[in-house]
Structure formats: structure tokens, C-alpha cells
């Protein structure tokens, strides 16, 4: 049975950027990268794309990717298309940067409703910038569909989705009727690399552009419920005390004594 899947993807600053080259912009209350460091698709969202494409590979269907943002970098947001997704919907808005999770979920849920037919929504478990793990749960609540988080394996059978979930000390398999929303984690496995053909096809494909007005949202739905007061880099009072010694073995011994003295061991 072909499956209609919607994947949400967020453009974020590259989390592998060394902390030392990140700059804090106190005005916008955002971190900024040097101009030569391009943004990336949130890693967990690439896992979501991979999960969707595996289902499409196995049983056919269509994968639509939705992204909300202020300034899209075309090559970056088109990556899911080059991986094999069918459509890309971009919702650009100058205020998108200041949306809180509540507003972002409203926008994505409205876009999913506008797309209309879907069996499954797959999202990354959280974004690497604000780490909230909040928006996908909000989308599910707003759409009134069941939600299963932190999937490492997602399978569709008839009208149900089964999700293998991984925790610190246990695993479980959860079944849900569709339509449903599933979030996935990196345990799902490496996302595929775009093929050359995929990159060519993605280059030719025009994303669908929607404005907030197209989604019929009112101002009250987008009003922030959580206001960012301040973004700051915590003062590090940690001064590292280097344990010295006659040789490396001696340093090891002295470290043990030091930690005992500090009552840490």
C-alpha cells in the first residue's frame, strides 16, 4: 500500500561548528556562525527523511518535506529532495526566527492540514539548536493524532505504524493506527547520501512556497507563550588545576589523592 508521508525539516546552524567560532548576538538573542560556515538540515530531521524514504522504498508512496524559516539557503533545504523526497514546501516568514515552539507547531500543523491527505508525519526527535523536543508533540496534539517518539525503526503495515523505541535500559515496540506522528532518533541509522541523479532532479524541482496568510492563521495563534529574555554564555569559573608529577604513573596516583581530598571519590 503506498504511504503518504510528511516530514518536517529545520535549517539550523551546524552543531559541529566549534564552540569558539560561535558568536552570540545579544540583540537578536541568537547564536551566529561565521559567514563561511553554511547551515545544515537538523541531523535528526535527516534521520526522519531516511525513515520516510525507507518506507517509500518498501511500499511506494510520496514524501513531502515542510520547512519553516526566515532565510532559507536553497542548497541546504533542497537536500531532502536530492535524497529522494518528492515535494518541498517552504514557509518563509521574516518573523519565523522569533517564533516559539508553540507558534512553530501551529504553522506546521496548519501546513499539514492544507496538504490534507497523509498517513504519517515523521519528525526528528529534537532540533540541535534549541533542543526543545517540543514542536513534533505540539503538531500531534494540534492535529489530534497519536504520537510515538524516539523511534529507531518505523514500519507501516495496513493501516498501522509500528515503532521500535530505544531507551537507556530497555526497548519497546509500539503500534499506532494511522494517521500518526512519529519522531525518530539517530539510532535509526545513517541517512543516505544524495545520489548524483537525485541532486540533478532536486536542482530542477521548484519548492512550493506558502506564506502564513495562505495557512489561515491568526495573530493570536502565533503569539509567543514563551518569551526569550536573554541568551548568554555562562561564566566559566572553572580554572583547570593540572596535576603534576614525576612521571605519568605518579600523576595518576596524585589525581586519586586530590579527588579523595576534595571528597569527590
Amino acid at each position, binding site marked *: 500500500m503506498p504511504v503518504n508521508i510528511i516530514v518536517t525539516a529545520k535549517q539550523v546552524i551546524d552543531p559541529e561548528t566549534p*564552540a569558539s567560532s560561535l558568536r552570540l548576538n545579544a540583540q537578536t538573542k541568537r547564536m551566529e556562525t561565521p559567514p563561511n560556515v553554511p547551515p545544515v538540515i537538523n541531523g535528526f530531521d535527516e534521520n526522519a527523511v531516511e525513515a520516510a524514504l525507507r518506507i517509500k522504498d518498501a511500499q511506494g508512496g510520496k514524501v513531502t518535506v515542510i520547512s519553516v524559516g526566515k532565510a532559507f539557503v536553497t542548497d541546504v533545504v533542497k537536500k531532502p529532495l536530492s535524497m529522494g523526497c518528492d515535494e518541498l514546501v517552504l514557509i518563509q516568514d521574516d518573523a519565523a526566527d522569533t517564533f516559539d515552539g508553540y507558534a512553530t507547531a501551529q504553522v506546521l500543523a496548519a501546513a499539514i492540514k492544507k496538504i490534507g491527505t497523509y498517513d504519517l508525519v515523521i519528525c526528528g526527535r529534537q532540533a540541535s539548536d534549541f533542543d526543545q523536543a517540543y514542536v513534533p508533540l505540539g503538531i500531534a496534539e494540534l492535529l489530534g493524532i497519536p504520537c510515538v517518539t524516539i523511534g529507531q525503526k518505523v514500519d507501516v503495515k495496513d493501516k498501522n505504524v509500528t515503532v521500535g523505541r530505544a531507551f537507556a535500559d530497555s*526497548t*519497546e515496540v509500539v503500534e499506532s493506527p494511522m494517521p500518526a506522528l512519529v519522531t525518530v532518533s539517530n539510532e535509526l541509522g545513517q541517512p543516505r547520501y544524495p545520489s548524483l541523479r537525485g541532486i540533478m532532479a532536486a536542482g530542477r524541482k521548484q519548492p512550493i512556497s506558502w506564506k502564513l496568510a495562505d495557512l489561515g492563521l491568526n495573530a493570536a495563534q502565533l503569539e509567543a507563550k514563551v518569551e526569550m529574555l536573554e*541568551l548568554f554564555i555562562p561564566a566559566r569559573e572553572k580554572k583547570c588545576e593540572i596535576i603534576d608529577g614525576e612521571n605519568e604513573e605518579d600523576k595518576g596516583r596524585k589525581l586519586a589523592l586530590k579527588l579523595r581530598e576534595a571528597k569527590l571519590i
Partner: protein
Amino acid sequence: MADPNGVLIIAELAEGKVASVTAELATIGAQLAKSLGQELSVIVAAHKVATSAGEASHLGVSKVYTVENSLLAGFQIEAHLVALAAAIKQINPRIILVARSVIGRDLGPRLAFRLGVGIAQDTVDLSWDAGHHALVATRPVYGGASMAKVAVKSVPAVATVRPKVFDPIANSAPGQIVPLTVSIDPKSVMTKVLSQQKQAATGIKLEEARIVIGGGRGLGGPEPFKVLDEVAKELKAAVGASRAACDAGWVPHTYQIGLTGKSISADLYITVGISGASQHLAGISTVKNVVAINKDADANIFKEARYGVVGDWNKVLPAFLTAVRELNSNR
């Protein structure tokens, strides 16, 4: 209806007992209640509440609200959401606190959406700000590279609290137990657990350990983790690893500490051959004391460390282990 009032913490149960994260919530909940000049209460929703409600009554609370229903057996999230949302409408609290545990990280946000209010996720500090007339929360963002201070403007305000940041509250005289009547439509239960498998207990849980020892790329292979295991045994510590060590297949991914792994809040975290990439640091932002053992004196981890040893772990660690054994035997 009266104005929303008080701080409500949502109890989490582990095998029928109140989980330690709930006692941690009570600590910060009590501080917030004091700032507000209002009461602290707790809600226990379960199949059977008698034992757990009794336990929860000692968490420094004035009231324990209970909801008892067979649909609340195990942790069926949809049934819990229906029960808690209905109960909260009756209780009418000003602030709701949820532990950011495996359960709470789903429950907190969904509950907030269901109530139509805002939430601060994964908070490490909370205060009542009379000026903003709002719950103000501090939370790590950008993988711990910076912190955000946010005001939850909605009423009630919800926050999930990172485990192990606050100490559990000391036992107090019992609060009053108040059973609530809430009906749960069985149709609201949509997902079902088909199977569950416990992984073999491999010692102390990383997230709960007071001492953690972690290995990274610098160890060079799976074999050295045996030395880490021995140190861990001696220190009653848990063993973790960086993403590099997990991706190389030296240890399972369940060991991974960092942005895509676990967050730890240990008192002591001994890193061995870990360079300190921001990906890894994201998981240790609430660790109290970091120790770095690394042969590269310029490694970023020394900037995060309280104590450092520049040297080959192969020589440093066995000597460290011997010394710890001596110290422990002379105790």
C-alpha cells in the same frame, strides 16, 4: 473561578514507587511556592494510588491529589494526558512542573499543548519573577554552547526540569490526600505497547550516577574500556563514551554522552581520551566536576575541567586505579 494558585508537581512512578526525579521536583517546587507565597502540591495518577500517594505525601507538599483508574496502568500516555488535563482544570495551579525524564519529555509538552499554554523544556534553573509576573527558566541551548533565559507568560506555566540538577527534598510530615474524580474515555487510548524488553542491567545508570567515567577516541579501541570498567567498579561509577567511540563500535550507543546521546549530571565526571567537542559537552553542562586525562595539553576538554592530567591514559589510569584501591582499603 478563583485565580490560578500554587505549584503542582506531577509525580512519576517507577514500578509503583514515586521516582527520585519527583522528589527533585519537590525541591525546586517548594522554592517557587515560597516565592509565590502559595502552596506546593503533587498529583499521582495511576491504576492503584494507595502506596504511591502515601510516599508522595512526604515530599513537603500540603496536598496530594490522586486519580485512580485501571486505564492508567503502566504508563499509557494518552490515558495519562486525559486524566491530568482534566485534573489540572479542577486543581487550577499557577505553575506545573514535570521531570524531563523519558516519560516527562513527552508528557510535559503534550500536556502544555492540551492546556493551550507555554512550556519551558529541559530547565536547569527556575524562579518566580515578580517583575515579569512569570515563571522564568534557564535552559541550555545550542548544545550547551549558551544558555537561554525564558519567561513562560501563559497561565498556568509549565516547565520540565532536567533530572539530577536539584537534590531530592527531605522527608516531611505528610500532606493531605485529596482523591479526584476524573473519567477517561477508553477510546482516547490509541497506541499500544506490543512488546518490551529490558536490556541486561549493566551497572549504574549513566543519567543517575554520581560518578561517571567516559572514554573517547583517544582510547584507540574497545579493549581499554575494560580498564574503565574496573575503575568504575571501584568508584561505583557508570561508564560512558563520546560519540567517536560509539560510532567506531567500541561500545554500544547506549554509552553515548552528548547532544545525540545522554545528558549526565554527575558530581564527578572523569574523561579519558576525550577531546571535548561541543557535541559531547552538550551532555555534560550540569556536571559539577570534570576531570580530564588527555595527552594533548591543548585539548578543549581542559577548558571544561576542574582537574587535568596531561599524559598517556595507558600509564595514568592504571596507577590511578591502584591508588584508589589503596585509599578504599584504608578507609
